[in-house]
């Protein structure tokens, strides 16, 4: 846990970027706001001393998944379509669901429940979040999960190629 100013700066920019993604007209602008948000969350991981996950977030999420989104947006060439009236603000039910959800979650956080475990020191947290510790348990205790994740990614790749394939009639 680093200085509070770093957390509040990153948190403010993350929320602003999420709102920017929500209300942006152009889908490319939405994608770029989401990239900013992902970078802010990676910074938040680093303030928590979770260095491995922070770097993986930038490499995989901002660097691969968002690039995939931008490729698809550019491939579909949405600017050639008529401009859609994108946001339906008329459904009050959706607003109510969102506000109720937020209030429920913030109420649980405000309860300040006792975890039963004392927070560990920053040095221990840095060691827990390091690539060495996570790599060790990934290849020993979670080796089967790793293999299954590999098969999942293979299935997703084959599925994506099949679904997006041009039909040869």
């Amino acid at each position, binding site marked *: 846990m680093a200085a509070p100013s770093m957390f509040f700066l990153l948190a403010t920019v993350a*929320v602003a970027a999420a709102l920017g993604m929500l209300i942006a007209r152009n889908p490319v602008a939405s994608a770029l706001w989401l990239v900013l948000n992902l970078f802010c969350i990676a910074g938040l991981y680093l303030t*928590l001393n979770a260095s*491995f*996950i922070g770097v993986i977030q930038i490499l995989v999420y901002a660097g691969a998944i968002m690039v995939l989104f931008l490729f*698809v947006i550019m491939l579909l060439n949405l600017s050639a379509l008529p401009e859609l009236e994108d946001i339906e603000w008329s459904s009050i039910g959706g607003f109510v669901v969102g506000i109720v*959800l*937020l209030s429920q979650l913030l109420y649980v956080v*405000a309860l300040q429940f006792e975890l039963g475990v004392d927070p*560990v020191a920053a040095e221990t947290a840095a060691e827990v979040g390091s690539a060495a510790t*996570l790599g060790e348990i990934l290849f020993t205790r979670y080796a089967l999960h790793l293999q299954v994740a590999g098969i999942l990614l293979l299935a997703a790749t084959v599925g994506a190629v099949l679904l997006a394939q041009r039909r040869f009639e």
Partner: protein
Amino acid sequence: MDVSPNWYLALSAVLFTIGTFGVLFRRNAIVVLMSVELMLNAVNLTLVTFSQSMGDPSGQMLVFFSIAVAAAEAAVGLAIVIAIFRSKVTVDITEITLFKH
């Protein structure tokens, strides 16, 4: 510990709610998928917060696999959007009403 974990959890709740608004209100299918990714990131933030404050690396293992699953789901979801776009030339989810009775 200058910033207690509760602040991280509150931020995660706010980001999750913004993602929910995106899924409920946006009509562009690609932006809906991006809002789902935002929700997944909010949950990952919660997992890393608890994992780091309790000193248990299993939470970050779950985040690792969550990122992998999110990548796979984004790829397949975008492939479906492309396939639908091929036949209907739209990404507006209100126009994809094939299953509507």
